């Protein structure tokens, strides 16, 4: 199964990039792939270039050395990622000493408290255990734990999914400020377009293992180039929503994805060519690209290829 299939994505220094898509589209796999944290049995090809080095080819030992001071990860469930038997101070000591063995205890404490403070955790609670903190506090601690080593890139996989809406807003505000406060680049993986709009500079939309559109957040929201992006935007329910909308059908099985464009069975704009040939990436200006035959190239579309695709109707219940 190709969970992530031929994906290209750049993340600049101090940039906040949103990676969006439905569940099962491969966005979490991509996030972990970047950090070399794929499960056993997974095979990765291609390049993940970080500071000129290809992380995919790096021996595990060297990759581990980068994990922390260079590459950080924040997971979805703050409740389960801290060790219940260790104090918050122990978590920080372990993390810092793993990478800087000669650090003095005073220095460990100073650096930990400073990072925790910026995340809104008071110094008086440094020696408490994880269960003494609320969900939002634990996620703040997790983020602080990733940031205390000052990584260049932080991958945050649905970091607010299990949190309440007000706490989610608080955490998003912290993440959006990372570049200012820590100079850290952030890859924010989420299914919620509202979060992308709020926190990100650039975004990539993933569908069935491929990035189908990428660009600056404002441009993509104002004028989505890929029909999937457009439909995803329309189906997001917010306070401004005036009409309920959903995308018919469900994402394909990645063991046997549809031929041509993987979205064509659900696409309202599908043309004949879409079911025959894989779309070719098109550049639509600075930092903006899309994989969709609607944007050409004309020369590669066969005769009659632009006629609407005739399909069987999608059943009401064939959905995600």
């Amino acid at each position, binding site marked *: 199964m190709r969970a992530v299939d031929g994906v290209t994505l750049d993340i600049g220094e101090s940039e906040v990039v949103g990676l969006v898509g439905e569940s099962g589209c491969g966005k979490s796999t991509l996030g972990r792939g970047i950090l070399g944290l794929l499960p056993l049995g997974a095979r990765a090809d291609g390049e993940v270039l970080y500071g000129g080095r290809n992380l995919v080819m790096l021996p595990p030992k060297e990759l581990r050395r980068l994990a922390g001071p260079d590459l950080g990860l924040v997971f979805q469930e703050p409740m389960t990622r801290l060790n219940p038997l260790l104090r918050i101070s122990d978590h920080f000591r372990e993390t810092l000493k793993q990478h800087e063995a000669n650090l003095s205890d005073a220095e460990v404490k100073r650096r930990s408290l400073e990072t925790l*403070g910026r995340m809104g955790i008071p110094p008086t609670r440094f020696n408490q255990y994880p269960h003494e903190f609320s969900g939002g506090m634990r996620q703040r601690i997790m983020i602080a734990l990733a940031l205390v080593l000052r990584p260049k890139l932080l991958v945050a996989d649905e970091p607010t999914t299990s949190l309440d*809406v007000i706490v989610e807003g608080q955490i998003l505000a912290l993440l959006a400020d990372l570049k200012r406060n820590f100079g850290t680049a952030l890859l924010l993986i989420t299914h919620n377009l509202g979060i992308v709009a709020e926190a990100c500079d650039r975004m990539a939309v993933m569908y069935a293992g491929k990035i189908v559109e990428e660009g600056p957040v404002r441009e993509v929201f104002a004028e989505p180039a890929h029909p999937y992006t457009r439909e995803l935007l329309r189906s997001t329910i917010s*306070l401004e929503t005036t009409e309920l909308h959903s995308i018919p059908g469900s994402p394909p099985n990645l063991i046997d994805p549809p031929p041509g464009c993987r979205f064509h069975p659900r696409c309202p704009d599908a043309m004949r060519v879409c079911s025959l040939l894989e779309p070719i990436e098109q550049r639509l200006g600075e930092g903006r690209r899309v994989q969709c035959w609607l944007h050409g190239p004309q020369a590669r579309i066969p005769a009659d290829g632009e006629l609407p695709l005739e399909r069987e109707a999608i059943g009401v219940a064939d959905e995600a």
Partner: protein
Amino acid sequence: MRPEVAEPAAGPQTDEEPLVSIRNLETYYSIRGNFADRLVGREAGVVRAVDGVSLDIRRGEVLGLVGESGSGKTTLGRTLLGLVRATGGSVEFEGREITGLRERRFRDLRRRMQVVFQDPHASLNPAMTIAQAVGHPLQIHGLVHDHAELRARVAEILETVGLAPAEAYLDKYPGDLSGGQKQRAVIARALILSPVLLVADEPVSMLDMSVRAKILELMLALKQDFELTYLYITHDLATARFFCDRIAIMYLGRIVEIGPAEAIYADPKHPYTQALLKAIPEPDPAKAVARDLPRGEVPDAASPPLGCPFHPRCPRAFEPCGWESRDLHDLLEMRWAGLAGDPRVEQEQRIVGDLAALDRPSSEVRFSPPRGRQPQEVVSLLERVRAEDPEEPFWRGVERLEAAGTHLALVFHEPREPRLEPVGDSEVACHLYDESAASG
């Protein structure tokens, strides 16, 4: 897509008897303490999950029950369904008192009231086929005579919820279905007994954005077809907007605002309702402005704040809202978090000493500084803190701060609990709308 609302939803002015009438409902959980406590039968305390809630659910309406985790919204739904026992108050369903009913009697009632839970993956037994699972209620209640009838009834309801053709789903296992399909099966199972009331506890929050709308539309259509009444429990005011005729906002076991949906969205009164609305991320980068969200999180329900439970987080809190010792604890901690790395933090900690003395809820604090420190030092420190951020609502609650002999006396204005009072088309529990509190 909003359903036609038969009547304006404000105030209990209709003659028709409500389907559900809840009065002063209390559902308390006792906290089990340590082993020794349990041995002698001592309770470590109670959590007031539902703390004196009164509301009606009218026939044919969708009532939204909205709040964060720990607000008691789910416990209220469970108490209504008899899945949790009420510890006080009354719930009348179709004019009949149902608190304290025995489980056997409740089982008959459950043909009339059904539930859809949040997680469709956990709501279906993975070892039962869809036909078995959806038909199970009919068997439990002895409503079918043979296997063929059971299958026919299940097939009919599956088609109704959009799982068509039913033959394609009858013999599948939950593992073969997508999240949206599973939730449709769960809804089918709830409807197969033709209930009048459906409690839907976060029915779409586990689903992908692309299918949420479809499930909401299905539920609205089913409401018309089956003449259902819904209690829609959610944390999400955005989906509630499409769904609800009236909305009740819960915070720490109490209703803080209730009214017609239009009024709640157009003119939210309670600062908590305002905060919940402000917190919803808007998928429009052009509108993404810095949001001033309430600080902190929902406090521990085992020892809720004095006065209004929302006051520690409320940007508009003032004198009567219930300021107390623990608010000073939080104020100092948040100050020190903000000053992290600054040497002042340690200096100030030495002056104040152990904050644990502030953890007993009280609106009068007598506080002894650590040995070798003068109470006047603490007073000066607090006055300095106040001068640095005079807008901090905490200071509005302070009536007196002075050194008195060997200790420090900090007296807050007397806390008052806000009650639900009519404000415009809604009812709101907030001192901002309470004339006597605002003028006093």
